[in-house]
């Protein structure tokens, strides 16, 4: 192992992009519930996340200030009237990842909002989790999210999950100019005021997406959760290049015309690890002896544990995220204010694209909190999320190679992901074509009464959800020339996903060089914590890669 003083002298605290040289240390790369330690070829760019932005010193004061200085509308207290009907919609457990240490920011904001309601004589308050077609949160998760006091006061009658399949539970408000159906929860349309409480983690969250997506149903989502919309979205993190966002915005504007919505948006920093796990958030150059020992100990311990236990251990460690911004008011100005901070935390400038991109796939995604990262979710993390973690231009070149580290176990959770199992084992062997899957099978899965029942009464993702996971990876599949999964414990999972496989990262890099050439540029995205890139290229090249910025139109719903 290289001596510490030799590593320290290479360390530049300001640069988030480090080029691997002969003194650089091996890099930690997540592979499911394991942490690999890998030597990378000289010249490999390593993109680190920005350091966590300093959290607000007094979050409660910041929330009160935001409520009293609303963007584009009256302060919240001025909108509350005795006897009114109030709906507070809340982002679900898919954010942040992993769940943050208690008190969750949603609890902090809710305590203030509910106190304000009580002071204003507003008693008819319902708390609704905006889970759309995500699984219902369990009682324990609901309690953890809002705290014991609110849970006791509101659950089970006035604190519920959104039910997108409830008969007569959805109201169609109309259609957008582009013909998209605008459908949201009846609770929202019947309320005098909807307060939406959001946690913003990446730039594609929040804004019009909150109500229009979180409180809608399958028919509402058919406007934009399609392979057509995904293909028309050149960058999910840059709304002006996203057909998905354009559609969501059109729907949101109709909602804002019909329903009084007051948004409260919050942004978190990226302090994912602290305490004994803090070393996982450090650069390897920054390691001390204790960090090295902790990493070796963690790797040894994980190596001795069965996978299920490893998963339990990781899922039981909440993140130490801090609140870095709060804004409230009308949808668009509130969202724009929060986006500024989120972008500052998330984006790292990187000069030029890369032929080969390496990503470790960690144990968690927005869709497997307290569950298994099944093969379809591994796919969505690779082709869907990590490929798309950019503003504008993708980090990897067209036809490039993406190397992902994950064991790709053929393992599914029948409680949370029953429809994923059928999708993966019955549909993918027939076709990987998102258009065919969308046309031929999506509605059948969405209407399957068993899946509908498991969504409504159990804790299962909706029958249509595995399709969205597959569409989400559509741009990655269209753009990438090759995906290589490293360390897979079987051959059939990567084969079904259309990926190559390799036993080691070195072997995968050799395979990638075989395709991209011996001088292929290589970049490692060093996460978690999550990092997003802003690829800097010449104006002419940007024009060539992105076009003029207008997203391609979506297919009619």
């Amino acid at each position, binding site marked *: 192992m290289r001596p510490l003083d030799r590593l320290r002298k290479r360390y530049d605290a300001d640069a988030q992009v480090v080029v691997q040289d002969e003194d650089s240390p091996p890099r930690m790369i997540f592979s499911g519930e394991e942490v690999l330690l890998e030597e990378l070829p000289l010249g490999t760019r390593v993109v680190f996340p920005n350091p966590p932005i300093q959290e607000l010193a007094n979050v409660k004061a910041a929330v009160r200030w935001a409520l009293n200085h609303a963007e584009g509308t009256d302060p919240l207290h001025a909108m509350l009237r005795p006897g009114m009907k109030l709906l507070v919609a809340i982002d679900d457990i898919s954010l942040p990842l992993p769940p943050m240490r208690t008190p969750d920011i949603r609890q902090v904001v809710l305590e203030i909002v509910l106190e304000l309601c009580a002071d204003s004589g507003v008693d008819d308050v319902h708390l609704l989790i905006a889970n759309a077609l995500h699984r219902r949160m369990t009682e324990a998760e609901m309690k953890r999210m809002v705290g014991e006091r609110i849970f006791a006061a509101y659950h089970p009658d006035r604190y519920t999950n959104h039910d997108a399949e409830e*008969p007569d539970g959805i109201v169609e408000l109309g259609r957008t100019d582009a013909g998209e159906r605008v459908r949201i929860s009846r609770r929202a349309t019947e309320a005098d005021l909807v307060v939406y409480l959001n946690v913003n983690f990446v730039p594609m969250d929040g804004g019009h997406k909150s109500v229009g997506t979180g409180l809608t149903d399958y028919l509402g989502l058919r406007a934009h959760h399609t392979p057509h919309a995904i293909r028309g979205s050149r960058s999910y993190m840059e709304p002006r290049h996203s057909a998905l966002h354009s559609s969501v915005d059109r729907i949101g504007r109709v909602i804002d015309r019909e329903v009084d919505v007051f948004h409260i948006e919050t942004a978190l920093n990226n302090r994912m690890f602290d305490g004994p796990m803090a070393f996982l958030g450090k650069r390897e150059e920054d390691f001390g002896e204790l960090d090295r020992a902790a990493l070796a100990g963690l790797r040894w311990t994980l190596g001795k544990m069965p996978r299920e236990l490893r998963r339990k251990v990781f899922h039981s460690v909440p993140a130490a995220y801090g609140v870095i911004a709060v804004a409230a008011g009308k949808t668009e100005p509130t969202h724009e204010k929060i986006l500024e901070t989120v972008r500052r935390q998330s984006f790292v400038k990187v000069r030029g694209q890369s032929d080969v991109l390496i990503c470790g796939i960690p144990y968690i995604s927005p869709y497997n909190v307290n569950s298994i990262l099944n093969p379809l979710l591994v796919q969505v993390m690779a082709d869907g999320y990590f490929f798309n973690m950019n503003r504008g231009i993708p980090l990897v070149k067209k036809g490039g190679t993406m190397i992902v580290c994950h064991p790709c176990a053929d393992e599914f959770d029948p409680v949370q992901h029953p429809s994923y199992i059928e999708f993966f084992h019955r549909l993918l062997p027939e076709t990987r074509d998102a258009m065919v899957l969308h046309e031929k099978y999506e*509605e059948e899965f969405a209407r399957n009464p*068993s899946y509908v*029942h498991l969504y409504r009464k*159990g804790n299962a993702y909706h029958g249509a959800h595995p399709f969205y996971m597959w569409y989400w990876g559509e741009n990655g599949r269209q753009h990438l020339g090759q995906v290589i999964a490293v360390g897979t414990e079987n051959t059939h999972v990567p084969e079904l996903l259309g990926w190559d496989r390799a036993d080691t990262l070195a072997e995968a890099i050799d395979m990638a060089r075989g395709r991209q050439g011996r001088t292929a540029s290589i970049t490692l995205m060093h996460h978690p914590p999550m990092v997003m890139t802003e690829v800097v290229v010449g104006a002419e090249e940007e024009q060539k890669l992105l076009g003029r910025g207008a997203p391609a139109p979506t297919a009619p719903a």
Partner: protein
Amino acid sequence: MHERVQPGDRGAFFDVDGTLISTNVVHAYAYYVFNRGTFFGTAGRLLKGLAMAPVYAAADAWNRKVFNEVFYQAYRGLSEDRLVELADDLCKEVLEPAVYPGARDLIDEARRAGCRIVLCTGAIDITMKPLARLLGADDLIANSLQFVEGFATGKVIPPIVEGAHKARRIRDYCVEHGLKLDVSHAYSDSMSDYPMLSVVGRPCAVNADSGLRRTARAYEWPMVDLR
């Protein structure tokens, strides 16, 4: 094969005992016994039933078809009009309270998915008709007792609806009503209904016993709990 939902092209076939309701054929028979009308009639059938209990248990463990054949002999001598007369009360007093909380939701969801709702049970049709009405089923596939001069002979008109015959009856029903088996659904709690579950394209284990749970896991069928 194109799987877009076409209204009326699929069925949802529900086993009843243990799947939609917590009671079984024995509860129904017991109700008839306790409502024989005479003290000696009730006592005689009760004693006989108790004496036969180990036989029924052994037959059920051995083979559901044998159990049905042995068990329905207990109906011998009961009058048809008496059974019909008591069926509504039996439904109201015994079956309706035993309907699992999620059963009606699941049936409603199947109906909204465009399925024709069919109860498919080894119980006798006289007993099941009021329950089928209560649950809003479109049809009922059930066993029928043989009656001679208005009295049950203790035999069931063959083939007995159980095991492989349930699957055959479902297949025949789909042909008769123009339904597609490969997009139809079947719901059961018991491994004895494996043929019924495997004959359709969309099987689902409901309140599954351990055997069915293992099978459902192996074949990756959805599992629902209505209790």
